[in-house]
């Protein structure tokens, strides 16, 4: 029987099978950021252990970082956490892309950008959105701080083998429907725990047509479906992305050609069997908008806020609580909900293509009155690229704030936060209560949908939208 993409990478990285069904899995790349690492480094110090492979470990700072200035961090506790990472990287000899580095950015944006992320590798980070890197055909997943310490000390993890789940998107996407809509549709279909225990492989015609950055968006939100990892088989799009510009950690010349031979053997064999499969008709998918307090509470933009007893998979109590928190009345059309803020950013949708696509919609227009629009590039390199293309001017002329790289309002661990009751169209990944600021109300959408909402002050169906 053939093997899946996941199985091929898994088997190549098993150091040893241990009694009781645990596997000792080798980790090729470890990304580190300031929030989930300090206690891990403290653990190493207490036990007198070292970092085993400093050459496989890369650090940056993103969660705590203010996006108006990288030189002034007013919050003393945030500053202490950032300084702790600086000290830990210096003490343990780890490469750090800090606030003064032009390589700084959201950890899941800089990995692919620098060629740290490559097909066929295992990759971890103390961050659930590590699933992003699966877009390259990489087995990449988030871990907690104890596991961060374990990888630092041993370059391995003790893992139970996950099950495999193939999600096939047939047909081609309609215009203005994006990979963000694909993943939101999937989560709406299987729920936020539907993928728990599985590694998802995304396949099908609609996936093959996606750019690398669009693939990263879909893999990024695998965790929102409960799956620790989401993967897409590498193909020419992948190889071209890796080779198209200078990526300091990607192989070159003969090494690249040799790597491509390995990469081309990675896709799941035609007769490979998955523990579960699901087919979704991509050509039937409309732009998606979340209405509730988890990413599975999502509907087509043409829909209306549901009645509490008509949401499959949720108890009435949970829907009541979500509607109350979101300040929504059943029956209200999603296109009639007035917005206060539009946030374009996060590890889900803050890459150069995301900025280009939203800029194309905004160009020459003005934002709706009384709306705050924030554009936060995912990395300093994305920021530079956007400025080289003049996108910053498009955003600024539109009336948006053009900011420095960081996680920003995706999780509000830094000064970028919603106020109590503020409603935001966000290109990020989580609409949990309080996620973007205590009492803030989040609607997850694609960059295109967010851009159009910034013009109108409410959501529109991009497929039929006409504007002055």
């Amino acid at each position, binding site marked *: 029987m053939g093997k899946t993409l996941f199985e091929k990478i898994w088997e190549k990285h098993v*150091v040893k099978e*241990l*009694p*009781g*069904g*645990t596997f*000792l899995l*080798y980790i090729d790349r470890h990304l580190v950021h300031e929030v*989930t690492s*300090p*206690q891990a480094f*403290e653990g190493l110090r207490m*036990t007198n252990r070292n970092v085993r492979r400093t*050459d*496989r470990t890369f650090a940056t700072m993103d969660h*705590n970082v203010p996006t108006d200035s990288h030189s002034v961090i007013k919050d003393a*506790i945030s500053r*202490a*956490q950032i300084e*702790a990472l600086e000290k830990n990287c210096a003490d343990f000899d780890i490469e750090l892309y800090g606030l003064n580095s032009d390589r700084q950015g959201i950890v899941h944006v800089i990995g692919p950008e620098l060629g*740290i992320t*490559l097909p066929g590798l295992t990759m971890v980070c103390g*961050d*659930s959105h590590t699933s992003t890197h699966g877009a390259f055909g990489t087995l990449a997943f*988030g*871990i*907690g*701080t*104890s596991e961060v310490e*374990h990888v630092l*000390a041993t*370059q*391995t993890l*003790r893992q*139970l083998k996950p099950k495999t789940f193939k999600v096939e998107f047939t047909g081609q996407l309609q215009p203005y429907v994006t990979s963000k809509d694909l993943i939101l549709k999937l989560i709406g279909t299987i*729920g*936020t*725990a539907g993928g*728990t225990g599985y590694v998802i492989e995304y396949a099908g015609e609609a996936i093959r047509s996606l750019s690398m950055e669009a693939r990263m968006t879909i893999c990024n939100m695998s*965790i929102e479906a*409960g799956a*620790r990892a989401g993967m897409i088989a590498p193909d020419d799009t992948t190889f071209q992305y890796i080779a198209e510009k200078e990526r300091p950690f*990607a*192989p070159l010349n003969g*090494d690249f050609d040799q*790597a491509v031979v*390995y990469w081309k053997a990675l896709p799941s064999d035609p007769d490979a069997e998955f523990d*579960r499969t699901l087919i979704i008709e991509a050509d039937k998918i409309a732009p998606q908008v979340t209405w509730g307090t*988890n990413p599975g509470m999502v509907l087509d933009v043409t829909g209306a806020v549901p009645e509490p007893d008509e949401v499959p*998979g949720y*108890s009435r*109590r*949970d829907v009541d609580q979500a509607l109350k928190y979101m300040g929504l009345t059943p029956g209200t059309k999603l296109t009639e909900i007035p917005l206060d803020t539009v946030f374009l950013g996060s590890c889900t949708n803050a890459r150069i293509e995301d900025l280009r696509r939203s800029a194309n919609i905004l160009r020459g227009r003005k934002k709706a009155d009384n709306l705050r629009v924030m554009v936060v590039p995912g990395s300093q390199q994305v920021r530079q690229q956007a400025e080289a293309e003049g996108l910053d001017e498009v955003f600024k002329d539109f009336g948006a704030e053009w900011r420095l790289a960081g996680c920003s309002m995706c*999780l*509000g*661990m830094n000064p970028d936060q919603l106020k109590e009751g503020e409603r935001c169209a966000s290109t990020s990944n*989580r609409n*949990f209560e*309080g996620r973007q600021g*205590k009492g803030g109300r989040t609607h997850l959408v694609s960059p295109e949908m967010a851009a159009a909402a910034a013009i109108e002050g409410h959501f529109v169906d991009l497929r039929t939208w006409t504007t002055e």
Partner: protein
Amino acid sequence: MEPFTTFRGLIATLDRANVDTDQIIPKQFLKSIKRTGFGENLFFDWRYLPNNKPNPEFELNAPRFQGAGILVTRNNFGCGSSREHAVWAIKQYGFQVVIAPWKEQDGTRIPGFADIFRNNSVKNGLLTIELGPDEVDQIFGLVDRFPGLEGTVNLEELRFVLHLDEEIACHFDIEPTVKEHLLRGLDDIDLTMEHESDIEQFEQSHSFIGVPD
């Protein structure tokens, strides 16, 4: 890590599904570089009013649940971010055990706990127990009817007992490796370092792509 063998404690219920780690410990508390001090901020946004007084509407603030050591909740507990701070907060608050039901959906069984949360729990000696949806419904009902209801978990025997006049016992399953880990309170890094020569050998034959050696 302290070994986990048996635990008896007061049961508290939280009747919400998909409780995410942003609710368990909101982001402002992740700025700490310590492993302690999280318990008082568990469920912060639900638990406290804007004036920082306890919110009387929040389930766990009920007088009858004070001092609880076992939390019974609904499906997909701990979803969302990988923050281990969520597990530290639950443990430091005083819970030693969390119980959640699996869920049948489209012919598959959806686990009671999110993956990363569950892994983090094991590393910290927090026992997560998955029971059937009917069993969990029954526990919710009994806790409602019998304030002060206590339960005992025996990990060796994989039994959870409710201390009623006539005791009710449920069996639970757990991976043998997880059970062993918790029972013995093992340190993972020590265990892995026993295989250091295997790791070295692996590294010698493993083809590293990219990153110059």
